[in-house]
């Protein structure tokens, strides 16, 4: 087994249509990387996604360090851009869902999550990297777990054990005989499914986006033979269109992830009947 991670790029092979070679379509193997060092079996290793995650961290911290280390009352260009991003999350998401008074203390967390997720998504279309870190479930799962622990603890801190339980199960006496059924469904939906969908929504979007990009990119290369060349052009146009679309989806998914996190907290602090 070769340790060369570049082997994952299917178009580095000489496989083309009409040359007796099957289409090397993307699959789960597209999301596996040979470790840069360490051993994949030992659980102690370092691979491309980890490298991108750490690089992304450096970029985010570096960007905000440069912008906000010595902020000025009359901002420069960089500070203005960073302020716009900060303000978007603060006003556009946190204050909108939680209100200024309740939401103020969650602003740093939400800003961090937003830019972290966005940066990790952005790797998908950054040349040479071209892999969304968030398409590995571990990264969205970690963030979703943080949010889950946060809003669960808020729920029980605010309402006590019984109140918290009522909050989680949507307890409402006016429902009458269907109340037990509703409570079971609500509990299942809020406590078990919610963190899972929170993480998977982001993961699956980036996973699918990367697969689509791979599909058209590999196809562009694979079709470069005989009449296939005409179709390769179409496929390449699709690569560009999908790249632009991914750029949009990356921001939307970061936004949705934070918006959901805020609405979970909002549900936790809300007074229930």
């Amino acid at each position: 087994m070769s340790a060369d991670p570049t082997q994952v790029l299917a178009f580095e092979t000489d496989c083309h249509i009409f040359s007796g070679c099957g289409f090397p379509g993307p699959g789960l193997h597209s999301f596996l990387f040979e470790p840069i060092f360490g051993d994949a079996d030992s659980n102690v290793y370092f691979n491309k996604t980890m490298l991108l995650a750490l690089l992304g961290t450096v970029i985010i911290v570096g960007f905000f360090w440069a912008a906000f280390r010595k902020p000025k009352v009359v901002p420069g260009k960089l500070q203005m851009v960073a302020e716009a991003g900060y303000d978007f999350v603060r006003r556009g998401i946190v204050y909108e869902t939680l209100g200024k008074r309740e939401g103020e203390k969650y602003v740093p967390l939400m800003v961090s999550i937003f830019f972290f997720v966005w940066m990790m998504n952005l790797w998908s279309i950054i040349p040479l990297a071209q892999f969304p870190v968030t398409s590995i479930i571990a990264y969205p799962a970690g963030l979703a777990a943080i949010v889950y622990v946060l809003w669960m603890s808020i729920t029980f801190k605010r309402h006590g054990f019984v109140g918290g339980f009522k909050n989680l199960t949507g307890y409402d006496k006016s429902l009458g005989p269907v109340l037990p059924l509703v409570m079971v469904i609500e509990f299942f939906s809020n406590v078990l499914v919610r963190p899972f969908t929170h993480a998977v929504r982001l993961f699956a979007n980036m996973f699918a986006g990367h697969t689509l990009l791979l599909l058209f990119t590999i196809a562009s290369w694979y079709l470069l033979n005989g009449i296939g060349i005409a179709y390769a052009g179409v496929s390449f146009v699709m690569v560009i269109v999908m790249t632009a679309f991914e750029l949009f989806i990356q921001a939307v998914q970061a936004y949705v992830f934070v918006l959901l996190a805020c609405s979970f907290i909002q549900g936790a602090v809300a007074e229930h009947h």
Partner: protein
Amino acid sequence: MNPLVQLAAEKPENPLVPPIPELVIGLIAFVIVFGFLAKKLLPNINKVLDERREAIEGGIEKADAAQTEAQSVLEQYKAQLAEARHEAARLRQEAQEQGAVILQEMRAEGQRQREEIIAAGHAQIEADRKAAASALRQDVGKLATDLAGKLVGESLEDHARQSRTIDRFLDELEAKAEAVR
């Protein structure tokens, strides 16, 4: 065959099961981002945003204060101007009144002086007339006696007799004059 395809086939992994090392690295990466933003960078920018808001609000407040002050100064000036006009009118009125009084006084004084001068003139004339009358009386007496002496040839030296005669003559003369008047 691609070695990763091989790997995927050999070790079928569920993409929904998070690999622990990546989970750890992901959490570490996020904690680093969160630490920097929450502990240092966002408080920094919040402070500056507050300062900016204060600067803007402070500017508005200052402008308001200046406006109010300008208004009060304007009113003060208007009040002073009105007072000055009033004062001027009062002074003019007073001056007119004083002028009238002075004119009145001067007129009265002039009148008084004129009367004094007239009275003094009358007294002088009276005194002159009396002096003239007495001088004339002596002169006339002397001339008359001289003339009578020459005519009579006799000196009417006797003073007493002479005086009696003259006085008698003059009295007659005066009585005649009185009668005529």
